[in-house]
Structure formats: C-alpha cells, structure tokens
C-alpha cells in the first residue's frame, strides 16, 4: 500500500499540473475572450458622419492606417495628429501635411495648437468639427463598456494560484531538510500574503483586472520553488526581493498614470541607464567570462537587468513625438551605446536581447522594414566581429547542435539540462527531488530544465505559456491603449521577455547556442526579478479595459481635473 507521503506526492504532482493549466486557461480566457470595447473620448464630425476618437493619440487622414479617417479634398494619408493630455486638454499637430491644418482660422504650426469643443478644423480643404464629450456623457459611455474580470473571476484564479503554491510547499515539505523547512514555508506563505494584499488593494481602489499580476505571481512561485530547491538557505533574501519587486511594480504602475510624467522622463531615465552601464563597465567583477556584476557591501547586482526596464521605457514614445520627429536617430544611438557597453562587459546574451528589442521597437516606431534589415545587417557584421574576437563565443556556436558529442566540456550544461528535463517526464519528480540543482547555474541558465525535472514537462510548458499569454495580452491591449507610449512599452516588454525566454530555454536544450541568460521571473537573481516585475507595469499601463488597471487613470477623473489653460486662451 502506498504510504501517506506517496499519496501526497502523487496528489500534489497532478494538482500542480491541473492548477497550472487552469490558471493559464483562465487568464487566457479572461484576456482574450472578454470584450475590449474602445474608450471614446470625443467625436469628429465630418459632413454628416460622426467619427469616434478612441485614443489619446490619433492620426487624422484619409489613409487606412488613420485612426480617424477623414475623406475629403486635399486630405493627406497622414494629415494631422490629435492628442489629449492627462488633464483632458486636446492639441492638434500638423504632421508635414501638404494641405496644412487650420483651427478656427489659425494655421497650425508643427508645435501644435489647442483644440476645444466645437472647434472648426480644416484639413487641407476639408472642414471637420471637433466635439468633446462632457464628463457625464463619457461616464454614460464608459458604463456601457465591459469591465475586466466579469467573465472570469480573478479571485477564483488567484485561489487556484494559492492552491498551486500550497502544493509546491507540500512537495518541498516532503523532500527538504527539516532545518530548511521553516524558511521555505515562509517563502511560499509570503507569496500568498503578497498576492492577496495586492489583489485587495486593487479591489479597494476599484480595479478588477488581475491577469498580469496572477501570471507574474505564478512565475514567481516557480521561481520561489527553484530557490527553495537549490538555495534553501537564502529563502529570506528571495522573499525580500519578491516584496521589493512587487513594490517596484506598483510604483512603476503609479508612475505611468500620468502620460506627461512618463513621456517627459524618457531622457533622464535614458541618461541614468547609460550611467549605470558606464559604472558597470568601469567597476565590475568578472564572473565566468561576463563582467556583468556590481557588488558593494556584500550585495551584488546586475545593472544590465535594470537597464532592460529603462531601455523599454526610453524606446517608447508618444505618437505626436513619432510624427514630429520622423527619425530614430536618437534611439539608435542610445541602443548602440547600450549594446556596445554590454559587449564590453562580455554579456553577449543580454546584448542580443537588447538588439531584438531594438528591432521590435524600431519597427513599431517607424514601421520601416528597411530600417530593420539595415539593423540586422549591421548587427550581423558586429556579431561576426564578436565571434572572431572572443573565442569562447565561437566555441559556443561550434557546440550548438552537438552538445551530446562533448558531454564533459562544451556540452556539459546542455546535456545535463536535457537529461534532467527528460528524467522528469510529464509530471516531474517532485519539488526538491531532482538532481540538476546540484549542477552549476541550474537555477539560472538551466532553470527550464530544472522546472521540467521537478514539476514535469507540462508545468514547464505552462511556464513558457504564461509568458506567451502575457505577449498576446500586450498585443491585444495595445490596440486600445490611450497612447503609443503605452502600446510600444507593452509590446517591447514582451518582445524582450520572449527573446530572453527563447535564449534561456532553447540555449539550455541545445536548440540555440548556449548564452546563459535568465528566464524571466523564474531564474534566481534579484536584479532580474526586479526588472521583470517593474516591466509588468508597462503591460498594466496599456490595459484600457474599464476599471481594469491601476496604472491607467480613470476617465471619470476628468470632471475634477482643472482645465485652466483653455479658459485663459479663450479670453
């Protein structure tokens, strides 16, 4: 007869799988099946037509890509950009149109002119009228929109996650050394407390979208389990880091509430990021080839991880900014400096992640495939130089696909990872019961294999799936986000994390060269955890479902907001 612990072991194994699938499916359903009706901020009357203005940044023109399609004489494809600021003030910019733009008979300069309710706007030779929605009307429209979390209860999903965490704890209780158990229990219980505190906080401020947080907590739970298996003596540190990371997430989200503040701080943040990298290049400790660690006072951190969050932030931009400055020059220089600094440090994995993110951002911003091709060609040359200059990179390429031919040297980590991952089967050996944790860098570079070994392939795939769901969500949210800033930040975040995931997972499985980057949220490492959580705020910033995200200022606030400037101008 099976013993009690055997029974618990089997129950928890299948429990973890079922709950993983459930959490993933519920988040997916909630994000993809719920209706994402656009917000409506104003109308444009063109002839007898009434066209809704559903973003804070809108292209006016006759092109298919225009947000408000105005068909009329001498209207360009992309004629003007109409924006709204945090205070509800509207501005129109002429984006190099041939026909010109007039507001109430004043020619609009490239620096823009304010637009008020009832304003007569002439695009080329076509007259349109701007009709702003009053707070009452807006509120009425807002109530018609579906609020987040109506179809799929976020509380129930969170309850599943809590059960998932308790099952993980149970498995550790069966395998861990007794002296580590209190700390491991503290780790998982603190996650439970943290997520429910977060959830209730959102409830209190009337926010009901919790999918991003749930998935991030799901991944963090796997990260907690990896920490408990590999470094149980450091659990307290992991707990403190997770708390700090969630606080950073909330802080970043709050920061993003104001578009002016967010967009305005791009340059200072960019400068700070470069400064951090400069410090890294100047004073860093070499750990196994890459000098990407800074340590002081007994603590060490990876500046390059924090720069990731800053990079996405700097890469995002508002639509008017994009159309007034039609080139990527500044951003390209910034990116090049980042990538060169990372190459100097020897962190080629991260350099590659930055590069892919650069491609996505520059494509999002310019829509130009040519730019992307140019960048790829340039990078190809740079990569060739790197490979010839650094023999250990060339060696990783040589090993790629041949890991099993050199299991004691070049293929050491990959073969161990593949072996352990396969040894876990679909259901895994149970938390703490694997052997890969004994191998160097198992809890960072080979973390996918470690999760597969201990929790099985299905949970491993769910771990990848969680980030895929977040990526779909980012794309979906971007459609209705108020500003291009939010859309670009959300999409860039997910491309960065997906690239990181691909390099981590496929590198350890010998499907790509081994680069030694971290798996978002799951790999051990404080800087990485902080960066990942803070970037989740970018996703929240793009989530414009009704009352969904704390990082989005609610529309109702408009009626309380002061609108002093327009009156001054009118007088």
């Amino acid at each position, binding site marked *: 007869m099976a013993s009690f612990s055997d029974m618990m072991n089997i129950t928890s194994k299948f429990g973890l799988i079922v709950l993983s699938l459930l959490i993933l499916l519920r988040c997916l359903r909630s994000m993809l099946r719920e209706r994402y009706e656009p917000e409506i901020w104003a109308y444009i009357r063109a002839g007898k037509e009434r066209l809704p203005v559903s973003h804070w940044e809108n292209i006016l023109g006759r092109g298919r890509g225009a947000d408000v399609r105005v068909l009329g004489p001498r209207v360009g494809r992309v004629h003007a950009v109409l924006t709204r600021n945090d205070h509800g003030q509207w501005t129109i910019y002429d984006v190099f149109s041939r026909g010109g733009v007039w507001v109430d008979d004043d020619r609009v300069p490239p620096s823009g002119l304010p637009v008020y309710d009832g304003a007569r706007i002439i695009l080329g030779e076509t007259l349109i009228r701007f009709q702003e929605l009053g707070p009452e009307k807006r509120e009425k429209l807002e109530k018609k929109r579906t609020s987040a979390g109506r179809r799929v209860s976020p509380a129930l999903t969170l309850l599943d996650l809590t059960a998932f965490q308790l099952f993980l704890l149970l498995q550790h209780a069966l395998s861990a050394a007794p002296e580590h158990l209190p700390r491991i229990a503290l780790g998982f219980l603190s996650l439970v407390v943290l997520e429910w505190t977060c959830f209730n906080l959102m409830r209190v401020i009337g926010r009901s979208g919790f999918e991003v947080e749930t998935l991030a907590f799901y991944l963090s739970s796997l990260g907690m389990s990896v920490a408990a298996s590999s470094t149980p003596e450091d659990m307290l540190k992991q707990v403190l880091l997770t708390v700090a990371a969630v606080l950073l997430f909330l802080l970043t989200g709050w920061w993003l509430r104001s578009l002016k503040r967010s967009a305005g701080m791009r340059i200072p943040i960019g400068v700070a990021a470069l400064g951090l990298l400069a410090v890294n290049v100047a004073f860093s400790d070499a750990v196994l080839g890459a000098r990407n660690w800074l340590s002081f006072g007994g603590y060490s951190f990876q500046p390059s991880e924090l720069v990731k969050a800053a990079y996405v932030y700097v890469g995002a931009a508002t639509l008017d900014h994009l159309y007034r400055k039609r080139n990527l020059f500044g951003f390209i220089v910034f990116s090049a400096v980042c990538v060169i600094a990372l190459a100097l440090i020897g962190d080629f994995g991260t350099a590659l992640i930055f590069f892919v993110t650069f491609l996505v951002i520059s494509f999002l911003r310019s829509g130009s495939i040519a730019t992307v091709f140019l960048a790829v060609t340039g990078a190809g040359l740079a990569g060739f130089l790197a490979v010839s200059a650094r023999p250990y990179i060339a060696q990783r390429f040589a090993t790629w696909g041949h890991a099993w031919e050199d299991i004691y040297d070049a293929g050491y980590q990959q073969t161990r990872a593949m072996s352990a991952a396969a040894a876990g*089967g679909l259901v895994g050996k149970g938390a703490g019961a694997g052997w890969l944790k004994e191998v160097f860098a198992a809890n960072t570079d080979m973390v996918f294999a470690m999760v597969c070994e201990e929790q099985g392939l299905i949970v491993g795939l769910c771990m990848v799936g969680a980030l895929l769901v977040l990526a779909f969500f980012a794309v979906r949210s971007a459609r209705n986000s108020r500003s291009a800033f939010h859309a670009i930040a959300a999409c860039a975040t997910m491309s960065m994390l997906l690239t990181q995931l691909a390099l981590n997972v496929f590198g350890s499985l010998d499907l790509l060269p081994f680069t030694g980057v971290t798996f978002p949220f799951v790999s051990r490492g404080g800087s990485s955890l902080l960066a990942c959580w803070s970037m989740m705020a970018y996703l929240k910033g793009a989530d414009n479902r009704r009352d969904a995200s704390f990082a989005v200022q609610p529309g109702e606030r408009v009626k309380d907001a002061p609108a002093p400037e327009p009156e001054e101008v009118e007088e």
Partner: protein
Amino acid sequence: MKKINRRAFSVLLLALLVIAGMVLYVMRYVDHGKDWALAFSRANSGSTGELLDRNGVVLASFSATRNDYNPDPEIRIANYHVTGDYWGRTGTGILSTYWNDLQGFSLLTGTTEAVDKSFSLNVDAELDRAAYRALAGRKGAVLICDYTNGELLCMVSTPAIDPADPEAVPEDGAYINRCLSAAFVPGSVFKLITTAAAIETIPGIENRQFYCEGVTEIAGVEIKCTGDHYSQTFEQALANSCNVAFAKISTLVGQDAMIRYTRDYGFLDGHSLDGIPTAAGSFPLEFVGDPELGWAGIGQSTDLVCPYSLLRYVSAIANDGVLCEPKLIRDGELSLRYRMIEKRTAELLGQMMSYNVAYHYRDTVDFGGLDLCAKTGTAELGDGTSHAWFTGYLQDEAHPYAFVVFIEQGGGGLSAAGAAANEILQFAVNR
C-alpha cells in the same frame, strides 16, 4: 495608433518562434527523452532491479538509493567483466551496455517510474569463479558456451577488479575484457582454420603423408618445428602441431584461399555479443611470399585472433558446422543459427580434434572422464615468452560445451591452458 497596433503583430511573430521552438523540443523529447534521461542517471534513477546469473545468483542489484553487487568478493571479481559496474569503467559489462534497459523510463513519469527490471544472464557465476581460480592470478580469458543453443555459460577475463571495492590503481588492463575486446597471436590454434581450408581445397589431403625433420626451408627461409615428427599423416600432423607440415599445407592452400576461410569463419571481423561489440582479428591480407604465408598458416606472422571469434568457430565445429550465435542474456529468445562450416569438414575437424586428445594430450594432462576434442596453441611472441591457448569442445550430450582458454604469456598451450581448461571443465560437468 492603428498603425502601431498593426505593427504590434511583430511581437506575435516572436511568440510564434517560441511556440515553434517548443514544438521542436517536445518532438525531440519524445524521440530521445529516454536516452537523454538515462544518460547521467546512474545515481538517481527511480528504478529497482537485479542482474541475475542462470541460477538466480544476484550479480548486481539497484534501487533509487542503493547500487549493490554480490556479497561475495570472489564472485564479484570473477564476474566483473560480465557485470561491469555502475560507473561504466569497463564498457563491455552488462551494467554499462544495458543500463538503459535496466532502468524504467516513460514519457509520463520520466525516470521516476519505479519498475522492477530483472535481467537474467546465461552465465553461471560459480563456473566463472572456477575459471577465475583456474587462471590463478595469470592474465587470461576463459569462454564456455553450450554449442547446441549458444548460451554463454562462462566469461572470465583477468585481471579484474572488485567493483564494490575498486583499488585506487587497478592492475594494468583490468578494465579490458580479454574475451571480447582484444585479439592475440593465436599460434597453433590457428591450424584449425588451415586444416579446414586444406580439407576443402586440397583433394585427398587426408591421405597424404608429411615428413618433418625439425626444420624446413620454404624459398630459402627456414621454418623451425617443435620437434622431429618424421613421417606423419595429416591427422598426426595436426596432433603433433607440426609447423613444417602446416607451413607447407598453407602454401598449398594459397594466400587467397587462406584469407577467404579466415574471413568466412569470422576471424577478421568484429561481432556482437548481445550488443556488446567484439574485437576483429587479423591475417596478412596484402600479398606475402610463401615463407610468410607459411608462418601465417601456423598462427604466427601478423595473425591475431580474438578469443570470442575462436569460441564461435569451435562451437560451429562441435555442432556439425552450424553456429548457434552465443548469447549472454537469458531473454528466452533463440540464438541465431547459420552454417559456418561444411558438414563434412566439421566432422573431419572434430575427428582430428578428438584424435589430438586421445593420441597426444592425454599423456600430459589427465582429462579424467571428459570426452574431449581440442587443439592447443603456444604462440611465440619473439621475446622468449608465449601465449598459451587451449580450445575445443566436449562430446557429451549432457554437457555440450565449447570452450576457449587463453593465458597471456602463459607458457605451453597444453601444460598451462590445457591444465586450466581441464580444471574448469571438470567443475562444469560435475556441477
């Protein structure tokens, strides 16, 4: 905004690549998962199992937490090259070769699946012990199989190690299985091949007389014999192991035919003993003159023979020319059979080997009640030492055993290897 939203699909392209990569991984996992999982799992598989000899003696037993061997050190050492060890120090042991089969793996539960996999071998651990004792600390190899069904009853190679308590610096060559993984100068046992070739290529050879006065010249090169045999029949020449006669016979057969027979009887190729590869032998393949061919025909020159190949050959002779491919693993499957030697040739060889024992060998070694057919070999190594060989089979329905006993630099074939073979065979038939 619309434009940017359209471009946002580039993120989905990345997502698609990730999905494609995962699909590729899952496909490879289904294909290779078992090999991957068991590649390093010696210390941590969840399976339990036992490796048993033909009588149920446990040679090795393992579970998720323990890897054990037989409690008797002598059994462990005598059977080391059969068992192998958990660390794969010797590549030819069952634990190395069949580890994947001994372990449980399923795609569902990975290596956690606690299956009980017992593996039975045809080997008799006690017979191995007897062979180990008979070798008495000398380097060598002993192989015995049942020629009627191919069951490999005895495989001992010395030196060996105690896998449960390995010495820090083991004796030189302790990890090499001399039965399977090496080939040695055969000396006169090679005359069994020359004899078969002569029977089939030289008409009336059985009735010819050969004259030996201790030395002969072939094309001006001297070939020395072990003694003065004077006038002798073909049969007597083999029993005398007369170099003069057999050097002459090989030149009569010719190099091409000698090569053909050596190859057809499986001496030039490596074989597979239930998946364990064995060593190939050698014979001069490039043209050599008659003197060198004479030397090659008596098992010198560049001749090398793997003991396992010799076992296959004598098994086939014993079984009227039909080889039952030896089997180490007792899995109930029948051994492969094929005719290696023509029936008449095999019969004649058998008669001559029987004559060898009756006419000659019994004077030196008392083979007791054994009805033995055999051939000795004393392979000169050129440094004054010689390998001792003794190979043959028992004409005994109850004990249809073919055997090879080889002692590296053991001295005289009959006095060293023959005596050891007698000791082992006596044990085997009286068990």
